C-alpha cells in the first residue's frame, strides 16, 4: 500500500533544517502501524509530509502509494487517492460548519473519481449516524468547525471526518492525546471497526494505553528523524517501561 524510501525532509525556507533523515517504512494493506518516539523526533513532520503540507520540502527519497509516487501530488489529490491525516492540532475554521465542509470534501472526491455525488438526504443520514457513533455533541457540529471546541471535542471531530470519508490509508497523529478514557475508547472502537483487509493505519502515539485497545501489527520507534527500531506490539510495552533513553543515546552516537 504505502512505501517510504530514504525520505529526507526539511522546513521550506530554513537552511540546514533537516527533520526527517532517511525514513524507510512499508505499510501493507490492512496493516496497522504504530509510530512512537520522543517529543520533537519528527513524527508529526512525517505525517504532514505524507499528506503534502507545503511547509516541508522533500530533499531526497520517495513515497509511493500503490506503487505510484505521490510526492508531486497536491494534498487534495492525495486525499482523493484515499489518504487521510487526523491532525495533532486541528485548525479552527470560523463560519464553516462540519456538515457543509464534509459534504464539499466528499463531493470533490466523487468528482475527481468521476463518481456521482451523494444526495443531500443520504449524506445527512450518514452524517447523523457517524455523529452518534463518535459521540460528538450534535449541537457542536452545527457550530463553526473546531471553533471553541475543547481539545477532546476536536479529536472526536477528526474521528467523525475519518469515519465519513472512509479513507484507504488513515494517519492518526496523536488522536489519543488529551482524551478522557471514554473518548479514547471511542477512537479505538472507531479504528477497530474500520479495520479491514483493504484499509491501513499509521497511528502516531506516545502512549501504550491506546495500543491496549488497538493492537498494532508493527511498532516503529522514531528518534531524531530516523526509525531506530521496528518490532511487534511488544515493542510498545518495552518503551512504556524503559523510555527512549537507550535509543536517544544510540542516535546521539550515530549523529
Amino acid at each position, binding site marked *: 500500500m504505502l512505501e517510504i524510501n530514504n525520505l529526507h525532509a526539511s522546513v521550506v525556507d530554513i537552511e540546514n533544517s533537516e527533520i526527517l533523515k532517511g525514513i524507510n517504512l512499508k505499510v501493507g494493506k490492512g496493516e496497522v502501524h504504530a509510530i512512537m518516539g520522543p517529543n520533537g523526533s519528527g513524527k508529526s513532520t512525517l505525517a504532514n509530509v505524507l*499528506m503534502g503540507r507545503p511547509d516541508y520540502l522533500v530533499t531526497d527519497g520517495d513515497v509511493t502509494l500503490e506503487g505510484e509516487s505521490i510526492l508531486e501530488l497536491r494534498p*487534495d489529490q492525495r486525499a482523493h487517492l484515499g489518504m487521510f491525516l487526523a491532525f495533532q492540532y486541528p485548525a479552527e475554521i470560523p463560519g464553516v460548519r462540519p456538515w457543509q465542509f464534509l459534504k464539499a470534501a466528499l463531493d470533490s472526491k466523487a468528482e475527481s473519481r468521476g463518481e456521482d455525488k451523494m444526495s443531500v438526504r443520504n449524506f445527512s443520514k450518514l452524517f447523523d449516524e457517524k455523529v452518534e457513533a463518535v459521540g460528538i455533541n450534535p449541537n457542536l457540529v452545527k457550530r*463553526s468547525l473546531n471553533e471553541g471546541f475543547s481539545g477532546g471535542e476536536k479529536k472526536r471531530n477528526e474521528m467523525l471526518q475519518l469515519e465519513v470519508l472512509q479513507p484507504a490509508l488513515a494517519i492518526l497523529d496523536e488522536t489519543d492525546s488529551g482524551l478522557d478514557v471514554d473518548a479514547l475508547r471511542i477512537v479505538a472502537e472507531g479504528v477497530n471497526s474500520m479495520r479491514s483487509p483493504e484499509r491501513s493505519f499509521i497511528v502516531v502515539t506516545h502512549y501504550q494505553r491506546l495500543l491496549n485497545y488497538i493492537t498494532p501489527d508493527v511498532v516503529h520507534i522514531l528518534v531524531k528523524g530516523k526509525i531506530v527500531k521496528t518490532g511487534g506490539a511488544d515493542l510498545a510495552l518495552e518503551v512504556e517501561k524503559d523510555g527512549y533513553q537507550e535509543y536517544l543515546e544510540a542516535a546521539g552516537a550515530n549523529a
Partner: protein
Amino acid sequence: MTLATPAAAVEKFSGAYESLVAGNSDVPEWLKAVRQQGWATFSELGLPTKRRGNELWKYTNLQPLAAADFAYSIGGSVTVDQIKAAGPWDDAWNTVVVVDGKFSAELSNLHDTVGLDAGSLAEAISSGKGDIESQLASLAGREEYAFTALSTAFIEDGAYLAIADGTELEQPIQVVFVTSDDPESRASYPRLVVDAGANTSIVLIETYLNLSESSQFSAPVAELFAGDKSTIRHYRVQIENENSFHLGTTRVRQLGDTNFTSTTFAVGASIARNDVHTLLDAPGASCTLHGLYMTSGSQQQDQEISTTHAKPGCTSNQFYKGILSGKSHAVFSGKVVVMRDAQKSDATQKDLNLLLSRGAEIDAKPSLEIYADDVVAAHGATAGHVDKDTLFYLQSRGVDEEAAKAILVRGFAEEMLNEFEPKALNDFVERITDERIPILLEESDTIGTA
C-alpha cells in the same frame, strides 16, 4: 488634473440648486429655509479634500468625484421586475420604492398595515405630517458635513415612515432607493425619515440599488427617530456599479430604553461611504452597529461609524468585517464619545479584515473619547490573510485550493450574513456574497502566505 477647489465644486452644483429654488413656489417656507441653510453650509465647505487637518476625509480620495459632472432631476423609469431582480424582495413586506429620489406609488407595495404610515416624503412635507417640520434635517444636514449639507439643499422627496405608538410589526418594512438605468450621469439626494413611536417594534430594510452602468452620484440621508422603549432592527444594503459614487448618511436618535440594532451589507460603487451616527440620548438606550463590506478592483469603501453616549447606562457595540481584494481601499473609522454625564456606559468596537491581495489597503481606526469615569470600553482592529494552515487542513480532506479558499472567505463572512434574518434578505445577501467571492479570489495574490 488638478484638485477641484471648493469654489469649483460648489459651482458644479449651483446651477441645479438655483433652478430648484426658482421652480418650487409651492414648497413650505420652513423647508425653503432648511434648504437655504444646507446650501449655505455646502457653499462654505465645498467637497471635502484630503488636505491636512481634515481628519474625517484623510483616507478618502474624492478626486474622481470632484472631476465628474452630474445633471439633476428627480424621478426615472424603472419596473418592479427590475427591482426584484436587482435587490431583495418579499411580497409580504411593506415596500416603499423611491426612484432617483422620487417616491413611486406605482412601484411601492403597501398593505395598509394598521399603525404604519408609509409613503412619500414630499407628501409628508406638504401636508405637515406628524413632527416632520421639526424632524427633517434635524439630525443631519444643516451645518455639519458637506454631503449631508448638499443633500439638505436638495430636499424634495424620498420616503417617510411613521409608526404609531405601541405598534409591533413582524413583517419588515423595506425602503428601496433605486437609481434608474439612465446613460446620463445624474445626482440624487433621496431622504428617509422614520418616526418610530413609543413602544414600537419594527424591522427596517434600507436598500440602495443602481440599475445604471454609467457613473451616478447619490448622497442619501436617513434620519431615524426611535421613541421611548422602541426596538428597531435595521438593515442597510448597498450595491451599486463600479463607476458610481455613494455618499450616505444615517443618523439615529434613541430615547430611553430603546434598542437599535443595525447590520450593513456594502459591496458597491467606485467610492462608497456610509456615515452612521447613533445618539444615545436617554438612559438605557443600546445600539449594535454591525456590518460586512467587500471591495475589489479599485473600489473605495468607507465606514464612518460613531456613537455618542450622552446619558448614563447606555450600551453600544460596533463590529464590522471587511474582505478586500485587488487594489481596493477600505476605511473603518469607528468612534465612540462618552459624555461627562454618561456614567455606567459600556462600549465595544471591533473591525476585522481579510486582505486577499497585496494591493488592497485597510485603514482601521477605532477610537474612544471618554469624558466620564465609570465606563467599560474595549476596542480592536485586525487585518490578516487567509491562513495557510487552515487552507492545508481543508485541502488534506480533499477540497481543492480554489474551493478551500472560497470556503474560508465565506466562513469569514458567515457570522455577519447570519444576522440578516428575514428570509428573502438573507437569501439575497448570501447570493451576492457567493457571486462576489470568485471575483475577490480572482484578484487575490496573498493566500497561503502568512
